[in-house]
């Protein structure tokens, strides 16, 4: 499936020496990274390592203080108008869901479509399609985000992100607030979905097993720079330094069981 697209590997994002500082604080430094079209790239690292900031840079919510971010060989725009257009080709999902509490589920989903000027029929059809895709009961859409469970909220958030059928999904700990059972279930579903829809995904997590499950490409960050990037087995077999080794060991010990 999708062999025509996945057989030709093209770089969707290319980051050159990207840095970001807030006042005195250098949050990101010398980030060089390529995200391939159709691939899932996972930004991994302990909290405070800069992975969320990196995702916000990709979403155009912040502009880097140094370096360059290319999207399809073009530097990310800086003008508001062009940025808005760029963002409409993204789906952005965060841990809290980012659903608007004053709108019910249906209104939350319809918002980007209404702004894009879709007809009502088109919007209805799209929501129905996504509802089947995400297996969300129809009645839930009449409720407000505060009235549904955490797992349902994240499904809804993902549906909204997919509403305009964007090329890229940027996800910041999308499953971080869920209990383990729901989280496991959604991990299964999402991976299938990413493959089925052939989306390029950049996903932030601090959880190694989750990274391993999703990622074609793992990027491990520490204190604002990339310590190591590549396939999971490279991290295990050739850790770049003691920190990588420790990070892998610590999470393998808990979640994957001791393989020794």
């Amino acid at each position, binding site marked *: 499936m999708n062999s025509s697209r996945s057989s030709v590997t093209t770089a969707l994002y290319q980051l050159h020496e990207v840095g970001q500082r807030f006042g005195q604080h250098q949050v990101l430094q010398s980030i060089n990274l390529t995200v391939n079209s159709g691939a899932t790239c996972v930004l991994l690292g302990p909290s405070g390592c800069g992975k969320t900031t990196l995702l916000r840079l990709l*979403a155009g919510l912040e502009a880097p203080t140094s370096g360059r971010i290319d999207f399809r060989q073009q530097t990310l725009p800086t003008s508001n108008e062009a940025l808005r*257009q*760029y*963002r409409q080709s993204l789906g*952005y999902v965060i841990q*809290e869901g980012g659903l*608007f509490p004053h709108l019910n589920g249906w209104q939350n989903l319809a918002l980007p479509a209404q*702004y894009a000027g879709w007809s009502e029929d088109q919007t209805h059809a799209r929501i129905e399609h996504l509802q089947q895709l995400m297996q969300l009961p129809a009645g839930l859409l009449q409720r407000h985000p505060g009235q549904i469970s955490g797992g349902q909220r994240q499904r809804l958030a993902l549906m909204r992100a997919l509403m305009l059928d964007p090329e890229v999904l940027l996800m910041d700990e999308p499953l971080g607030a869920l209990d383990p059972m729901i989280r496991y279930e959604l991990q299964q579903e999402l991976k299938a979905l990413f493959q089925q829809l052939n989306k390029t995904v950049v996903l932030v997590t601090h959880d190694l097993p989750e990274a391993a499950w999703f990622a074609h490409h793992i990027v491990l960050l520490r204190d604002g720079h990339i310590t190591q990037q590549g396939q999971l087995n490279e991290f295990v077999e050739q850790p770049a330094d003691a920190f990588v080794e420790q990070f892998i060991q610590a999470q393998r010990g808990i979640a994957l069981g001791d393989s020794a």
Partner: protein
Amino acid sequence: MKTPLAIKFALCLCILASVMLSNGLLAQDTQQGHKAESPTLTVASKSFTESVILAELLRQLAVDSGSASEHISQLGGTRIVWNALLAGEIDAYVDYSGTLQQEILQLSGSTSWDALAEGLAEYGVRISRPLGFNNTYALGMPQELAKSLGLERISQLREHPDVVMGFSNEFMDRPDGWPGVRMNYQLPQQSVTGLDHDLAYRALQSGDIQLTDLYSTDAEVDYYQLQVLDDDEHFFPPYQALIVYRADVENRFPEVLTAWKQLTGHIDATQMSQMNAQVKIHGKGEAQVASTFLQAQLGITSMAQGIAKPSALSEVARYTWDHLQLVLVSLFMAIVVAIPLGIFAAKNASIGRGILALSSVLQTIPSLALFVVLIPLLGIGAAPAIAALFLYSLLPIVRNTHSGLTQIPQHLQDSSRALGLSPGYRLRRIELPLALPTIIAGIQTAAVINVGTATLAALVGAGGYGQPILTGIRLDDFGLILQGAAPAALMAVAVQGGFQWLGGRLTAKH
């Protein structure tokens, strides 16, 4: 559905406010129209009984001489009446030579009538010859206390530094009041409280204060058995009552001026004191007391007093309507201005700080001071009151709009930006609805404050619940005070409850 509810509410407010606005404007138009055709002479009084009686004398004499005349009673103080006179909102009132000399012309030393007339002529204002009595300031204390302390003269207060003093607020501030007395007599008393003149007698009676300022024609001097301390160093200038009027009255109402001349030199201190007592102690109406005086002294049977007193219920209804009008029109204008200001402040941090600071400063201006500034611009009546209430309403609404918008959680701001929505669309569909409960709470605060502050509107002749409160305080009539205070409190509670219900409806599902 929440948005429609908010819109419905806003619409209702809009309609109500615009109806009231156009009502007010229409009323003003017809008034002005009247002025052009059959001119009305407007007299005014300050908010103490003697002033109200004297203005009533002026009005009845004017009517008796064939002119239409109205009396705007108990305005907030000398400055307000003076500014209204200069603005042409009123034509005449009675003031005292000492007040005119010190407060208006700011002349020191003793001034002759001619000097006074000359000084006032520069403002286009004329004065009559003195009416007769000298209502000068005096200091008084209960006779028994004065006797036990051996106090007869003001200079003797030097030896009694512990005497507890309470003065009317005006007396506290005026150079010819307490500051002057204290300097002139070198008095040692430090702790002095300011209070309403009419409350001072009660405070004397209850022993909370021992000495207060009096007017020598006050009805209470005898009634409360007060000892007036002798002004042995002749500090207080004479306070001859005289009619102060605009120069154009001479052309517009020559016959009225002739009628008023009958009063000059015809009211002595005893007569004035008796008239005051008739109102304050025997509970007669000012109009009735004035007409009795005119009949007894000048042989004039006035036809001007025959207005039947409306029932208390219809009075309260009228106060309520006036009060509601003040509150709603000012609130509506504040909403229209403050919400965009608040949005602007939230989107431009540096200018926003300026806007918030400015609206905070507005809030701290005392309402009387604000009225004094506004009268030259807007005259008296509802307009300056609404303008003042409008200015006071800005801060809570601007502040809450600002904080409602800036306190939207970061993740919601990020998500709305990440959806690629334009700033205007974000504001309309996401930010304002999210901030709405906070904004409504700001409007609620403004409305409740307005209901309270609007009681001061009576000081500039705007009516409302302040009217019976002012009169009630002046006449020491608790029932009358309640007629204004109780419905004002009810209105505040209702407004509070209404907005809470609305806020609750809006956040029910969040």
